[in-house]
């Protein structure tokens, strides 16, 4: 086997290895080709939606608890604060997962 042929087989092996690795990543779902839109407006909108919906769910759950237990307005008040906390935590998580900064929160 001469030198040229040998190195070409090695290069071939390398490309085949990286192909296999890529397929394995795809199979496991470890590399994501698709991601959320990353425009400034899209991010702002996403964060806004996250805050509003967490608050909505918190208050909704609180009202439900009040309705079942008859504890109005205590359930709503407590769950409102939980909703606000969840909202802020979700924003923190979202911004952290955007990356780009050393203070980014670890991915969930």
């Amino acid at each position, binding site marked *: 086997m001469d030198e040229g042929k040998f190195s070409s087989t090695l290069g071939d092996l390398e490309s085949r290895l990286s192909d296999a690795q890529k397929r394995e990543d*795809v*199979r*496991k*779902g470890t*590399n*994501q*080709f*698709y*991601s*959320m*839109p990353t425009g400034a407006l899209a991010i702002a*909108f*996403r964060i806004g*939606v*996250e805050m*509003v*919906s*967490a608050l*909505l*769910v*918190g208050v909704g*759950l609180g009202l439900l608890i009040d309705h079942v237990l008859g504890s109005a307005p205590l359930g709503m008040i407590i*769950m409102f604060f*939980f*909703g606000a*906390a*969840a909202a802020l*935590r*979700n924003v923190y998580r979202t911004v952290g997962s955007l990356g780009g900064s050393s203070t980014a929160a670890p991915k*969930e």
Partner: protein
Amino acid sequence: MDPLHQFNIVPIIPIFIGTGNVSFTNSALFMMIAVGIAVFLMVFGMRKRALVPGRWQSVAELLYEFIVKLVRTNAGIDARPFVPFVFTLFMFLLLGNLLGMVPYSFTFTSHIIVTFAMGVTVITVVTIVGLVKHGFHFFSLFMPHGAPLLLAPLIIPLEIISYFMRPVSLSVRLFANMMAGHTMLKVFASFVIMLGAGLGGVGYVVGILPIMINVALVAFEFLVAIIQAFVFTLLTTIYLRDAIELH
């Protein structure tokens, strides 16, 4: 010239069962048109089953392969059985959003009850998948690894709220985007009429400006229609992965 008039639900065939109003409305009509187009595109497109696809078959294959790839890359190979579910979801939303761009049509995705029903369906499916696959272990989703036990009474309600938040944020995102966009189109279009009626000849000249903005907005709305259908589908696959892998 009410910009919200386009969102009115009009019964086409009134049907009342007892006190319940189950009329066939314009919303239902456009949902059926969306389903009809999707079925037609797939059945007609794949009719020939050619090895070298023609135009329609290419469209059908591209859409299908896009979703297969999306599911596989985001939810892993174990999520393969859910490709039909995700694909149906995507086609319905995409056609609903795009049908809304046809003049005089009705955008059913601009109603929060429609998008919320779809969001709840997604979360129900995801929760059932998680429960079937992991049993009671699924509830460890509500208590992240490594969190101190002392914080459990604080973290568990927060995680539960975050979980219930998913259908709400899914549906609010889609509905708000569609409704805001279509309202904006109508508002800018009505500026033209108002300028013309208010200022006469000068108004018609100045009215070119809102028309130019509207042209840009229509293009932007097409972008939003496709992106929001995609984002809804993307988040569905991410939630599916959460339920299947359960970190």
